[in-house]
């Protein structure tokens, strides 16, 4: 990747990342985030991580961001009107973030942080090399990931589900109310 392209993409990524934080309307924040993710995907591809770059576009900018979009629509969020948050909080947040960035620069700067460069082997970043690594050295982690995703799906469904008793008649439902009272009056096991 030529350096000017890197500088252009990097500036664009920083501007759109700032847009995520600065925009008042959640939809605008989301669009800025999608643009940041796309630029990061292009940088991945520029770094010879082609498969991961495309996965980034498909999984992140495609699937996860659409999920965010649906939630914003579902909650019918509008732009925040009036002052948002304390001015002290904003100043503190900006200062803390700047301090963190400065600290990272010092740690990752050239004098302290040296990496011995290696030449990339042929086929680096291809699907074959990624799968070869994934299904040999990282096989256990890969299988555990499937359990994680299953747990996440079950958890998300359980969280977002409307409980029939509480939803149908509201809290005036005598059965639900008595159940709640019984639960509150029964001795609880601590710990």
């Amino acid at each position, binding site marked *: *990747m030529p*350096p000017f392209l*890197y500088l252009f993409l*990097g500036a664009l990524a920083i501007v759109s*990342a*700032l847009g*995520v*934080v600065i925009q008042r309307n*959640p939809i605008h*924040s989301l669009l800025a*985030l999608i643009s*940041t*993710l796309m630029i*990061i995907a292009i*940088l*991945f591809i520029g*770094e010879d*991580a082609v*498969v*991961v770059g495309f*996965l980034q576009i498909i999984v*992140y900018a495609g*699937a996860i961001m659409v*999920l*965010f979009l649906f*939630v914003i629509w579902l*909650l019918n*969020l509008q732009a*925040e009107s009036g002052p*948002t*948050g304390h001015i002290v909080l*904003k100043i*503190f947040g900006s200062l*803390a*973030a700047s301090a963190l*960035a400065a600290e*990272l620069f010092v740690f*990752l700067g050239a004098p302290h*942080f040296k*990496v*011995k*460069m290696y030449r990339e*082997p042929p086929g680096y*970043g291809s699907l074959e*090399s*990624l799968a*070869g*690594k994934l299904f040999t*050295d990282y096989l256990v*982690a890969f299988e555990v*990931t499937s359990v*994680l*995703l299953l747990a*996440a799906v079950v*958890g*998300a469904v*359980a*969280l*977002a589900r*409307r409980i029939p008793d509480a939803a149908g008649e509201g809290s005036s439902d005598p059965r639900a109310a008595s159940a709640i009272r019984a639960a509150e009056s029964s001795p609880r096991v601590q710990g």
Partner: protein
Amino acid sequence: MIPLTYMLSLSAIIFAIGVAGVIIRRNILVMFMSIELMLNAVNLAFIALGSRLGSMDGQVIVFFVMTVAAAEAAVGLGIIISVFRNRETVHADELTLMRW
């Protein structure tokens, strides 16, 4: 190839912007988006270091980070929906049940 320091600097800046977003913004959804921003900044550092070292491990780690981010987004958005259903708000300062 772009010098490693440049890539890591970009990663550090995006990470710091994500931290600022979590601290400054009070909308839970935007705080959540800032967390995604931080995850991606770390992914960028992984990819940059991996290609300099000529090893595929960085890319595999990024693959796992994406999976965990997907799981986190699903569960987190489920929590946000159920909080909104009960409290009619996504403003973090109004959720004070567990504040001492």
